[in-house]
């Protein structure tokens, strides 16, 4: 019996020791001076770019110790680290971080302004441009604190990690299958997009996959990743309303003052109506299994050719590399311009773009083609109209503002982090990231970098988009009304993509926006109390 008790106690003790160890899961509570610890979220851009960057950094700095942990749970780990100020990690690469919240509530972000005021450096080779000038200007403010606490203002707390454009992607194999090789054209306006959808739906073409015939639909999407639709209809809002109105919508401010009307710019209704038209069940533009699909399932179906178009970001090809045997020819195209823009331009500039809606849209499409071909004017439209269309054409959605690197305030290796980030933003670092993640850091000179080897059609098309004149737009939680008051991108429990696209009880775009306005009005006083 005594022996049994001893064994029992021993087992119990071992259990206790094991559970105590479990309280510090591979996370030492503080970092080791001289060893740079990097944790990188493993998502669509793969798991290798951070390690490859660290390896190259070590070649230039043989004395440096760098550890990289890349896994899909880094995001959760980072949240805990930034909320507790306990971590051994010196640099987190994650997507989505509220600078305002972590500064004000947890004081857990290190000020990395020094990086921005430094030059990129690879070994002894130093570039003659400041990092803040190398990053795209529209992304720069997103990396700074923008709340109302003076001690954090004008300081940088995050730095962009690789992330490119998000837009409409065509499966050219599927389109060839429907129309015959090359007998189709890329949609430049939303009217052309709907015409293409109608033509695909009308053809009722089929694709045979593993012995089963499937109807080819214009679109497929995933109920699990409804937010991908936003990469299409957010630019429509910005194209119609303009970048200033878009930014006002994000901060819910007009002339620097919180204003409910800023939340619903005039282009929002038109954009939602177009979304409604695309996802409304009775229109038959989307594969009927879409809402049920997991995101990787719908991507696989898209690659199989069960749909001609899909909305997502430039990570698609990298993400699907090992997931499917189907290697379709994919092409990312710039977001078609909302056809409503022609009427707006007519009233704004007192011009006529055509006698009928079809003529107006044709003029708009012609102007877009001229812009894409690098022309500086178009014969039948004024310079003002041409420039307005050019501005609209440049608008592209990205997640580059939320795919970031952040340094915990408790990091014991800030100097090493700064040095590493300087290397990351060197031309060599950008090339390594391009090779491994197949995406760019959001730098102004992205077009100067070429990936090694033969490029896929998809990669070429993404590069073409980034090489052209583009203006990135994004959603943002920088303003206190977002991170402190809790105003989300949508108010209420139902996303617009669900409300407009559901099988039973779908509502119209107008009804959704009316509901949104009512909810905002009801909650406005609550938001204002904490601002």
């Amino acid at each position: 019996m005594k022996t049994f008790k001893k064994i029992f106690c021993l087992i119990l003790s071992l259990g206790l020791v094991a559970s105590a160890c479990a309280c510090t899961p591979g996370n030492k509570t503080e970092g080791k001076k001289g060893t740079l610890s990097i944790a990188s979220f493993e998502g669509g851009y793969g798991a290798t770019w951070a390690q490859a960057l660290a390896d190259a950094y070590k070649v230039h700095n043989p004395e440096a110790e760098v550890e990289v942990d890349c896994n899909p749970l880094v995001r959760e780990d980072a949240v805990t680290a930034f909320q507790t100020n306990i971590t051994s990690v010196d640099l987190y690469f994650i997507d989505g971080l509220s600078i305002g919240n972590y500064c004000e509530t947890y004081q857990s972000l290190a000020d990395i302004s020094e990086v921005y005021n430094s030059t990129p450096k690879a070994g002894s080779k130093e570039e003659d441009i400041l990092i803040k000038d190398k990053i795209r200007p529209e992304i720069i403010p997103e990396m700074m604190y923008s709340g109302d606490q003076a001690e954090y203002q004008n300081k940088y707390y995050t730095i962009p990690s690789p992330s490119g454009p998000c837009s409409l992607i065509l499966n050219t194999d599927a389109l060839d299958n429907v129309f015959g090789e090359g007998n189709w054209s890329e949609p430049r306006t939303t009217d052309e997009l709907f015409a293409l959808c109608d033509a695909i739906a009308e053809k009722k073409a089929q694709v045979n996959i593993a012995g089963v015939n499937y109807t080819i639909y214009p679109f497929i999407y995933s109920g699990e990743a409804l937010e991908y639709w936003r990469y299409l209809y957010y630019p429509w809002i910005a194209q119609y309303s303009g970048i200033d109105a878009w930014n006002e919508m994000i901060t819910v401010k007009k002339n620097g003052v919180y204003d409910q009307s800023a939340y619903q710019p005039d282009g929002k209704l038109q954009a939602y109506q177009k979304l409604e038209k695309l996802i409304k069940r009775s229109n038959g533009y989307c594969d009927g299994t879409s809402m049920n699909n997991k995101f990787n399932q719908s991507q696989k179906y898209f690659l199989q050719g069960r749909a001609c178009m899909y909305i997502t970001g430039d990570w698609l090809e990298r993400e699907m590399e090992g997931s499917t045997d189907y290697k379709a020819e994919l092409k990312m195209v710039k977001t078609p311009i909302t056809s409503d823009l022609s009427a707006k331009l007519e009233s704004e500039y007192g011009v006529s773009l055509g006698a009928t809606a079809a003529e107006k849209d044709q003029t708009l499409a012609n102007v877009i083609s001229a812009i894409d071909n690098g022309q500086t004017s178009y014969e039948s439209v004024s310079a003002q109209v041409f420039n307005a269309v050019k501005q609209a054409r440049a608008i592209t959605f990205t997640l580059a503002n939320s795919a970031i690197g952040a340094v915990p305030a408790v990091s014991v290796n800030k100097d090493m982090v700064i040095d590493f980030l300087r290397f990351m933003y060197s031309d060599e670092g950008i090339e390594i990231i391009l090779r491994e993640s197949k995406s760019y850091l959001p730098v102004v000179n992205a077009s100067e970098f070429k990936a090694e080897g033969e490029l896929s059609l998809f990669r070429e098309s993404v590069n073409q988009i980034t090489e052209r004149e583009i203006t990135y737009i994004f959603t943002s939680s920088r303003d206190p009304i977002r991170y402190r008051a809790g105003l989300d991108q949508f108010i209420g429990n139902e996303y617009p993509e669900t409300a407009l696209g559901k099988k039973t009880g779908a509502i119209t775009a107008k009804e959704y926006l009316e509901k949104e306005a009512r909810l905002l009005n009801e909650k406005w006083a609550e938001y204002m109390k904490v601002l």
Partner: protein
Amino acid sequence: MSDNLAQGIPVKKKTLQSRKIQRGFFIGLMLSVGIIQFLVFWVYVNFNSILMAFQLQTREGLIWTFENFSRFFHELSIADFELDLALKNTLLLFVVGTVIGLPTSLLFSYYLYKKILFSKFFRVIFFLPSIISAAVLVALFRYMLAVDGPVNAILSSISGKVVDIEWITDEAYSMGTILFYVFWTGFGSNIVLFTGAIHRIPQDVLEYARLDGVSMTRELLQIIVPLIWPTISTLLVFATAGLFTNSGPILLFTQGQHKTMTIGYFIFDQVQNNSYYYPAAIGLIFTAIGFPLVIIVKWLLGKILEDVEY
């Protein structure tokens, strides 16, 4: 001869005392782990949650306020916000999982106990959800109920028409599907407890009843139920205590879309979005409602039938 004996010191007494100290130290050490864990993860967390319910992060920093409580009642009154729907769904989960699920589990436990035809087959069917992890089970369930999945295929072949019901993403079916899932997966653990309790009933009691010609219905309702009443009442008290915090399998199925929001998931979703003060207040409100409710249910259950010892 040892020094102690030479000095006349009572060696045995001291050894006993030292053993007592060692034993006390060992017990204290063992208990300390549990006590520390209780203090940190229960007392501190709950106490902090109560404090957080009265806090709000503003421009001036953290302030003490009742704002979170008034916000909840305000949002509850906004029809478009659908918090009333979340409350309704939460109550539906309770009704299906407990009010309907518990008696049904009892019936099936009795059926398994009586070893009636196919009972072994159904034992596997009912226990299966308890053995398989929830994530795997949901994945299987989703596959079965996919638009082009086996259930719709079977329905199509039976009806001769194309059946493409979206069981999970069509709001006409989604909550019903989730309720069915809760009902089905709730069986396993309840049946284990009920069959265990029934097997503990002395066989001679049931044999006497059989000799007296008692029917199966009477045996179940007038003999078994009173004898296993402590198990039934414990399960009912637990279910009542978790009434408002039970989010159901919403995270794995719909993330609150398609009219499936529950109060439990709403709180979870808020916390996921780094909002802590408001969900703490909601938790406190439902604790204030749930605590007396549990006391009342416990009191009522004690009144219905007295505990029987055997």
